[in-house]
C-alpha cells in the first residue's frame, strides 16, 4: 500500500468566473509556439521586409535632414534612390505580406492548432472545463492572429510611427491619418481570412503536416489557376479565383484608391468575406464537445 503525500489538499483559492476563457487559450498557445525555435526563425524571416524598410526610412530621413553635414552628393543619391513614394511604399509592404509572408506565418503557426488537439483528444480536456465552443475557436484564432498581426499590423504601425518621427513634422500625422487606417485595414484583410481558413482546414484532419500542405496547396493552386486563366484569356479578371490576388487587390484599392486587376474590388471583398464566413461555419460544425458515434 503506497504512502500518499498528505500535503495534497483541496484547493481553497478562488476561481475566476467562466468568461473570456479564449484569452487563456490564446496566451497558452502563443507561449507554446514561442518555445519552438522554428517559430522565432519564421518570425525573423518574416520581419526582413520590415527591417529593410526601416533602414530605408532611416536613410531617406537622414538624407533629407543631411543639409551641409553630409556630403551633398551622397545625400542627393540617397534622396533619388530611397524614394518613399507615399502609399506605394506601403503597398509594397502589404503586397509582399499578402503574397508570401502571412500565408507562411499562418501555415506555420495554425496548421496544427486544431489538428493536434484532435489527434491527442484534447477537445475532451477543453470542454470538460468551463469553455464554450466560441471560447475555443476564438482562442485558437487569437494565436494565429497574434503572429499574423505582429508581422503586418504591429510592424506596419511601427514603420508608420518611425516614418512620422523621421519626418519630424507633427502635421504629417493629420495629413496621413487615412494611411494609418489603411495600414490597419490591410493588416486585417490579409490576416483574418487566412487565419480562419487554416483553422478550418486544421479542424478536418489529425495531422498538422497534412493541414499545412492542404492550405499551401490551395493557395498555390488558386494562384496558378489565376495565372493560367490570365495567360489563356489575356485578361486579369480571372485573378479573382486567387486568394492572394484578392488580398492584394483590396490592399491596392485601399492604399491607391484604384483596383490592381480587371475586376471590381467588391468581388475581392466578397471572396475574402466568403472565405472567412465559410471557415467559421466549418469550425462551428467541426468543433464538438461530444463526438457522436453513428
Amino acid at each position, binding site marked *: *500500500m503506497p504512502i*500518499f503525500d498528505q*500535503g495534497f489538499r483541496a*484547493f481553497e483559492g478562488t*476561481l475566476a468566473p*467562466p468568461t473570456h476563457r479564449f484569452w487563456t487559450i490564446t496566451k497558452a498557445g502563443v507561449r507554446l509556439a514561442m518555445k519552438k525555435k522554428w517559430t522565432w526563425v519564421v518570425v525573423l524571416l518574416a520581419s526582413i521586409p520590415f527591417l529593410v524598410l526601416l533602414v530605408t526610412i532611416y536613410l531617406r530621413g537622414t538624407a533629407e535632414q543631411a543639409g551641409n553635414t553630409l556630403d551633398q552628393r551622397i545625400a542627393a543619391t540617397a534622396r533619388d534612390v530611397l524614394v518613399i513614394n507615399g502609399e506605394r511604399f506601403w503597398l509594397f509592404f502589404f503586397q509582399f505580406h499578402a503574397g508570401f509572408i502571412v500565408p507562411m506565418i499562418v501555415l506555420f503557426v495554425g496548421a496544427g492548432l486544431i489538428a493536434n488537439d484532435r489527434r491527442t483528444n484534447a477537445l475532451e*480536456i477543453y470542454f470538460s472545463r468551463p469553455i464554450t465552443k466560441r471560447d475555443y475557436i476564438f482562442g485558437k484564432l487569437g494565436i494565429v492572429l497574434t503572429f499574423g498581426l505582429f508581422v503586418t499590423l504591429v510592424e506596419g504601425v511601427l514603420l508608420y510611427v518611425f516614418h512620422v518621427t523621421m519626418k519630424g513634422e507633427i502635421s504629417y500625422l493629420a495629413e496621413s491619418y487615412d494611411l494609418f487606417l489603411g495600414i490597419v485595414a490591410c493588416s486585417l484583410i490579409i490576416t483574418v481570412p487566412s487565419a480562419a481558413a487554416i483553422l478550418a482546414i486544421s479542424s478536418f484532419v489529425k495531422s498538422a503536416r497534412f493541414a499545412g500542405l492542404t492550405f499551401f496547396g490551395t493557395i498555390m493552386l488558386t494562384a496558378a489557376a489565376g495565372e493560367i486563366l490570365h495567360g489563356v484569356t489575356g485578361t486579369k479578371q480571372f485573378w479573382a479565383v486567387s486568394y492572394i490576388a484578392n488580398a492584394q487587390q483590396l490592399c491596392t484599392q485601399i492604399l491607391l484608391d484604384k483596383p490592381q486587376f480587371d475586376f471590381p474590388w467588391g468581388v475581392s471583398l466578397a471572396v475574402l468575406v466568403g472565405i472567412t464566413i465559410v471557415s467559421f461555419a466549418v469550425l462551428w460544425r467541426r468543433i464538438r464537445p461530444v463526438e*457522436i458515434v453513428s
Partner: protein
Amino acid sequence: MRFGKVQALAGLTLRVAGGAVGLLGPNGAGKTTLIKTLLGLVAPSRGSASVLGLDARRDPRRIRQLIGYMPERDCHIAGMNAVNFVAYAGELTGMRRTDAFSRAHEALFYVGLEEARYRNVDTYSTGMKQRIKLAQALVHGPKIVLLDEPTNGMDPKGRDEMLALVKDIATNKGIHVILSSHLLPDVETVCKHVVVLSRGKVLADDDIARLKAGAGDAFVVRVKGDAAPFLARLVGLGHAVTAATTSEGAHRVVLRNGDGSDLLFRTARESGVQIRHLIPETLSLEDVFMKALEEA
C-alpha cells in the same frame, strides 16, 4: 437522451448521494452519456439534470468549474510537458497562473509523476497518461470527480495504485467520486454505492453490501451422479448456475429467491443425485451485476 435514432438514456431517474459511487454497465449502456449530461455537454431531450444544486442545462460552465473529469480516452495537449499541461487545465478552469502551477506540482506529486513532470506528455506510457489525466482532473480542487474507466490499459501494479489513489480521494480528500467502469472488481474496490446501467436504463441503484445481500446466496456444489438434471432443475427454478469451477466438477450455484441450502438437498434428492461437497461462498459484485442484467 437521444442521438439520432439511438436512445442513449431512457427515462432515467437517479439521485447520487455522494462518497464513492460506481457506475457500472456493459459497453453502450449509457455511462459516458450520463457523465456528459452531468457535465452539461449534452442537454437531455426531456427532463432535467442537476449537479450540486446547479441545473446542468442553465449553469453548465459553473458545474464544470466544480467538477473534475478524467476522460476514458488518452488525451493531452501536444507539445506540453506535464506541469504545463496540468497547470493549463487549472487555468482553463479559472485558476490564477501562479496558483495553477503550484497546484500542478502538488497534483503530479500526488499521482506519482513527480520524477516525470518536466517530460513531454507525448512520451508518456499508457499508465502515466492515466495518472496525468487524474492530476488534471484534481488540479482545481473539484467537489466531484468523474472518472471514466481510470484503469484502462494499466498493468496490475499500476491498476492497484490507481485504485488506491481513487479510494484515497474519496475517503481522505473529501471529494465525491463517480467511477464509471465495466471492470467490476475496480468498482468493488473503491465504491460503497453502485448504479448499474444497461441500454440507458437504471437496473440497480443501491449500496453494494445491500445489493449483495439481496442477490441471493452462493454455494459451490459437487454431486455424485449425473449433475445435468440437478442443475437444469435449479435453473428452471430461477437460480443461477455457472460451469464447473473445479477439476472435480464442482459447480457454483446462486440461489436467488431467498432459498437456503435446504433447497439444494431437496432438488438433489428429486434429481436422484447425492451432494458430496457444499461450501457457502461470498457473493461478488459480478453476481449482483449479472442478476440485474438477467432481471432486465
